[in-house]
């Protein structure tokens, strides 16, 4: 029982939060924010597998997010493909793209990897901006409503449950992946890639797999985002959005799935909360980023967990 709680306790708490939160959300505005939190959390949970567990950075995940979003937008709008099918097609396409670039990209290390993922993301953003006939260009494009069976998901309260459910599913998948043989191999890889390879871990294959998984998570989140907002612009593909995702992961805590959720929540809610200080947004955001990295290099959740553990012998 204790082992079960240790492993799944966090998941149960998160489920409870998703179930109970609507009781205290006063209006549409807050529901909308919660939807954004859950969707960003999906991206971060996936990205955390890559950054926190495999120790690889990606500065281009907004590209995958936007590809998913635009796949949904274009396939449902132009070809009248059902939303869920379009979402899966987008995810499959993004997964394939990630798979094709994973091997050459993940052979690179550190700065070169950062550059390659960054380049990929920027190219995606430029293509979306320029292919106006297909994507609507910088003005963005309207997205039809999502149907799940006969259910037209349109009210923001409905979206709360769809996004929350998808987020829980993503967390559950990530936790299972971390507990599997691949997860152990990844942790070994993060510790020392050479040692892991010597011990028989196919490091390139495992890294590539996590890269693909994290890209697919981002794509699904992007599809849901497009349908929830009913509108999508190329800004979602931008370099700054990629940075935002990485920051969420790092702030919440690398190698902590719940940390990724907390980071996503903080950085989604905080800018809204300080909206009146809009002018100082960038300044504060940058300062927080630097300070977290210097004083809490492991991120919020792991650092707090450590503090808690030390208090209770």
């Amino acid at each position, binding site marked *: 029982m204790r082992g079960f709680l240790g492993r799944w306790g966090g998941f149960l708490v998160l489920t409870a939060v998703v179930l109970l939160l609507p009781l205290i959300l006063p209006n549409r505005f807050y529901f909308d924010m919660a939807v954004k939190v859950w969707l960003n959390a999906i991206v971060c949970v996936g990205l955390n597998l890559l*950054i926190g567990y495999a*120790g690889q*950075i990606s*500065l281009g995940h907004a590209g995958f997010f936007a590809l998913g979003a635009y796949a949904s937008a274009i396939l449902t709008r132009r070809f009248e493909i059902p939303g869920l099918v379009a979402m899966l097609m987008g995810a499959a396409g993004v997964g394939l793209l990630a798979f094709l670039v994973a091997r*050459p*990209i993940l*052979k*690179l*290390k*550190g*700065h*070169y990897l*950062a*550059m*390659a993922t*960054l*380049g*990929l993301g*920027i*190219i995606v953003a*430029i*293509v979306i901006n*320029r292919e106006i006939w297909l994507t609507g260009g910088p003005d963005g494009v309207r997205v039809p409503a999502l149907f799940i069976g006969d259910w037209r998901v349109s009210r923001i309260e409905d979206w709360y449950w769809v996004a929350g459910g998808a987020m829980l599913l993503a967390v559950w998948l990530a936790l299972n992946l971390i507990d599997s043989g691949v997860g152990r191999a990844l942790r070994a890889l993060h510790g020392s890639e*050479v040692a892991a390879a010597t011990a028989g871990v196919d490091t390139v294959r495992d890294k590539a797999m996590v890269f693909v998984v994290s890209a697919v998570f981002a794509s699904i989140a992007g599809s849901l985002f497009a349908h929830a907002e009913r509108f999508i612009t190329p800004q979602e593909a931008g*370099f*700054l959005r990629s*940075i935002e995702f*990485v*920051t969420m992961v*790092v702030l919440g805590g*690398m190698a902590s799935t719940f940390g990724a959720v907390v980071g996503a929540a903080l950085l989604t809610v905080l800018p809204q909360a300080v909206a009146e200080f809009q*002018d*100082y*947004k*960038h*300044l*504060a*955001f*940058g*300062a*927080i*980023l*630097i300070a977290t*990295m*210097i004083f809490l*290099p492991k991120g919020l959740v792991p650092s707090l967990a450590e503090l808690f553990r030390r208090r209770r012998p």
Partner: protein
Amino acid sequence: MDEFLQFLFSGLTRGSIYALVGIGFAIIYNASHVINFAQGEFVMIGGMAAVFITANAGLPLIAAIPLALAIAGVAGVALERFAVAPARGASVVTLIIITIGASIFLRGVVEVAIGKRDYALPAFSGDTPIRIGGATLHPQSLWILGTLAVVVLALKWFFERTRPGKAMLATSHNRLAAQLAGIETRHVMLTAFALSAMLGALAGLLTAPITLTRFDIGIMLGLKGFCAAILGGLGSPYGAVAGGLALGLAEAMTGGYISSAYQDAVAFAIILAVLFVRPQGLFGRAGTERV
């Protein structure tokens, strides 16, 4: 042919800017093995500070330039002192995020202090284009090309003839050995950041009369400078110059002959292709990794 000449001028001009930014990446990487993602912000600070000083303090351009360079230099030193040095020994990912945080912060400071508009700086020696063959050359382009040439020569002198320059080279080869030989590597780091910041600011000052300047121009310029540095093989200032010029030319030719919509993508496409085939960059040596 006239067309080609025109694209050549344009390519060399922007290539020189990328080269100046790329040199900054290379110098900081050499001294500290940090990729400074805030490098582009120094370009922005150079241009914006000069605009601010000439417009608000009413100083002539000739006085504004050294002041703007000094401001950027101080920003560079502050970056090293307050953001990079405290995280000494952290992982590559951590350092990347710190410098990204610093770039967002610097952008935020300028956004609040000066504003979000486009600003222009007067050209150094007028706007009358020079006709060469059938093409025209903006006089500012000559300033840019000339500055790059002077910077390359000065760097050669700095690294080969001066004590701080030699100390920087020694540190880049082997930090510990340099320390044992009595080199104060902390000062080397500070010098590297100050020097890179000033080179970036110089690029910003030079390009502001042609391209205008804004609080957020640093993002793209920084990334392209990074491309130049990687293309030249990280850590080689002269490689960065070659990489920058190559990128500038490739961009201008693509923009002129193939598609102007995609010229911004060229640098990144080249970088991806190069990284796939030659991960150590065009001019870099094959990397060996210490275990």
